[in-house]
């Protein structure tokens, strides 16, 4: 019987190996696109990237009146024009998610440095047991470092943190009740539930002495988001970051933890020093803990003022342009440690912008947005299609005259291009117009620079800005293709340089 059983087990193993091959070859990719779409975020990072910034919505959220709406990662890139900086941004994610995404950076990638967003709020029970976890964890199962069929097995048998919303609420409320404060002096609350209840009952008073509901709500959110004492032994987020450190060690990456700014000004105003002291203490614990492990920790906690927080009735780390630039600058200064030779001071003035990027996916509005298509993409899902009747690609438009002359000597244009053949006459066009000077138009041949066909290839050109257009009311940059060949353009980057 033992022989018979052994034979069947061997047969079963062979069957599973064959099934794994079948799944990997014909089913895995479509399953990834259906159930683990976030793998595309990692795939969008080219193998020759130098710096990868990984974060959540704090990286990409901007305020409507920002002149420069680019993410923090792009601002960091401005300090290192000679390096290739890319980002992996997944809203609502945290270190547990980053770890799995980073594991998927191919071993052949030349990435040297990883900047990981460290969000203090993500150490709080409400985030740890957030109702977003089920879908986040589910989206990671297929990209775990196991054979594809085994990953699919884990997904089918729901081997991920799967809980209902009410179960999650129960979990974080239990944690809040369980974690008692050990504070010096006579701190009047036993745990965050008592603190929150007290705030809710007493409330914030407006100038007339009336209960101010929105401000009280915000105060309660601050208490629930930051009213905890960090335990480096028990907090699961600590081990997530430790796993990232371990991974960085294995992959020989430089590691920076970008500890995000919080609205400590507002928190202090509404709740008082007890909370801000607690926030600072927790950050100190994190800084000491990870510095000891050899990670460069950039402490931004108190670096952004209240006016730069986009959400004035919530505790999110969403900054307006100046806030994002501040965080970026602090990270860039830390990166000088490895890239001192590449570092270049950025002239930051919120009245103008010198660097522009459109990946065709994130809703940044340029001209000719109707040319966006999901036919193919270099990153994300969309690119801009020109040709076959669509003469113009997405079109960059900007009042060039707002940039000081000393900072606009050169325009560097870079984009990714997919062309089916070289039977076209597509051109990169720079066009300028304005009152009091002759319209300017110049086209630069594309196929003379990029000859690769049927693959995504990078087009890069630096053009001296003629004096005649420096005071242009409007400069337009686009690809003009009047042929029948369809050409796709993606990840359009423009840098106005001194």
């Amino acid at each position, binding site marked *: 019987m033992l022989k018979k*059983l052994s034979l069947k087990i061997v047969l*079963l193993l062979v069957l599973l190996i064959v*099934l794994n091959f*079948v799944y990997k070859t014909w089913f895995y990719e479509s399953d990834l696109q259906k159930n683990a779409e976030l793998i595309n975020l990692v795939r969008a990072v080219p193998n020759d990237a130098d710096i990868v910034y990984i974060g959540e919505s704090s990286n990409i959220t901007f305020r409507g009146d920002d002149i420069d709406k680019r993410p923090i990662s792009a601002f960091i890139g401005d300090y290192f024009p000679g390096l290739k900086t890319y980002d992996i941004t997944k809203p609502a994610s945290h270190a547990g998610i980053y770890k799995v995404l980073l594991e998927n950076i191919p071993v052949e990638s030349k990435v040297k440095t990883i900047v990981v967003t460290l969000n203090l709020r993500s150490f709080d029970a409400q985030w740890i047991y957030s109702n977003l976890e089920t879908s986040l964890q589910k989206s990671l199962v297929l990209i775990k470092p196991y054979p594809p069929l085994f990953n699919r097995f884990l*997904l*089918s048998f729901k081997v991920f943190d799967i809980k209902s919303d009410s179960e999650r609420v129960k979990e974080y409320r239990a944690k809040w009740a369980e974690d008692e404060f050990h504070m010096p002096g006579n701190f009047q609350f036993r745990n965050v539930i008592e603190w929150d209840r007290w705030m809710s009952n007493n409330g914030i008073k407006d100038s007339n002495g009336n209960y101010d509901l929105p401000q009280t709500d915000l105060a309660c959110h601050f208490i629930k988001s930051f009213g905890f004492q960090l335990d480096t032994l028990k907090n699961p987020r600590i081990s997530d970051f430790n796993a990232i450190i371990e991974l960085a060690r294995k992959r020989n990456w430089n590691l920076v933890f970008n500890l995000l700014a919080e609205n400590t000004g507002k928190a202090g105003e509404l709740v008082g020093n007890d909370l801000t002291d607690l926030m600072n203490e927790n950050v100190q614990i994190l800084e000491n803990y990870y510095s000891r492990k050899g990670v460069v920790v950039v402490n931004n906690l108190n670096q952004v003022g209240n006016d730069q927080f986009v959400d004035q009735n919530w505790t999110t780390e969403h900054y307006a342009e100046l806030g994002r630039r501040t965080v970026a600058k602090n990270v860039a200064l830390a990166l000088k440690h490895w890239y001192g030779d590449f570092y270049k001071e950025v002239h930051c003035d919120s009245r103008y912008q010198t660097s522009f990027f459109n990946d065709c996916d994130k809703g940044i509005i340029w001209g000719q947005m109707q040319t966006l298509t999901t036919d193919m993409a270099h990153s994300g899902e969309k690119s801009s299609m020109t040709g076959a009747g669509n003469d113009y690609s997405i079109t960059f438009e900007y009042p060039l005259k707002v940039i000081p002359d000393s900072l606009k000597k050169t325009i560097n244009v870079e984009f990714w291009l997919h062309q089916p053949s070289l039977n076209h006459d597509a051109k990169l066009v720079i066009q300028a117009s304005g009152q009091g000077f002759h319209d300017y138009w110049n086209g630069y041949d594309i196929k003379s620079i990029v000859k690769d066909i049927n693959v995504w290839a990078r087009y890069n050109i630096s053009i001296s800005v003629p004096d005649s257009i420096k005071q242009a009311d409007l400069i337009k940059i686009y690809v003009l293709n009047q042929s029948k060949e369809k050409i796709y353009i993606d990840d359009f980057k423009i840098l106005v340089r001194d």
Partner: protein
Amino acid sequence: MLFNSIEFIIFLPIVISLFFLIPHRFRWILLLAASYYFYMCWKVEYIFLIVFSTLIDYFCGIFMEKFHEKRFKLPILLVSLISNLGLLFFFKYYNFASENLNLLFDKIGIQQDIPLMNFLLPVGISFYTFQTLSYSIDVYFGRQKAEKHLGYFALYVSFFPQLVAGPIERFSRLTPQLKEKHLFSYDNLVNGLRLIIFGFFIKMVIADNLSGIVDEIYAAPEKFSSLEILKGLLFYSFQIYSDFSGYSLIAIGSARIMGIRLMDNFNTPYLAKNISEFWQRWHISLSTWFRDYLYFPLGGNRVAKTRWVFNILVVFVVSGVWHGANWTFLIWGALFGVIYLIESALNKLLKIEREYTPYSFGHISLAVKTFIIVTFIWVFFRSQSFAEAINIFKLLYNNIGFAGAKLIIPGYLWVFFLTFIASDFLLYNKRFDVWLGNVPAIGRWTVYGFLIFSIIVYAGIENFPFIYFQF
């Protein structure tokens, strides 16, 4: 712990390995501990309900056996009945009864508000209370000797493969098997695994994929044309069948590996020629329970015709209410009863039902007729309220030709769906493990490959628990 979870995939081999490794005299302890653990994975405190039910019936059995005269036994039986049915009523029907009484009071102008309770229905309570009740009733009638070993009795009540959704086993069938010394058997292992794999396939690939489509229809039926709604009803018939029969197969297969044979719970019910036969093939352990412990005590068919009609209706209505505390279940049961009676009358009158060769035109025609009736009756089972069910029927009529939303049914789902229907034809009056055992090795391994691959790659990945867990 759900069967279709990694916890169970780990739990089952551990329990089975230990079962064969430890001496026979300790096995009941292992199985009892495993069963309690299995139940406590869902909600720890509700294990006390099982323990309570176990102790009540254990002692009732022992005390009843001490008396020979029924008049002395009866009060003890009543203790068992009141305790078990009281527990069931309290957890399952209290809120339903309160809501309806409040409505009634409101209508007749009485100022009385019966409070509602806010607790979770204990998983499997309808199953294990019926299982223990059958024991007490059998002891009362002298059909069963009282069990002296509390451990074995507790194991009979809580044996994990069938604890939360059956099959509802009889003491005389299950306990001797639990007491019997089972040696490891290759045949039991293989047949048990075959049943488990097929159970996973029909639960995870068929039921869980159909579930999303059915939910879509029932969430907003007014968006869809009659044809799409009909597809939804068709899919629900197969969803509930594959969901429950899949569960039963995994339960039967798990016990089978340990050498314990649980009763079959399904036998291709949609190939039944009439409602009577349908209930001989659907949830067999429950139908036979009602037959033995309700229908026969009421007099069965050895009574006057009007009484027989009454008996039939009572059994079907009670069976409906057993499923859930909602008027829809009561109507669902009653409809089965009424159609059963109509079919019986027509059959006597027209003599349309006789022995048909399987798969003959007559058989298939009658099976299709039965399936259509059952499919429409399921509307009451699936709907949350009577109004929702009636709305479905109205829309079926009103939305003829309506160009509404279209259900998105992936091609692979049609393939699996049709494969499942084909398998029902193939397995008519046969069991999957036996049928597969007779297939040549190459075919058998092809089936294994197909099932394993389908379970892993095509399982529905939303979190759909077994439908019958709610009963």
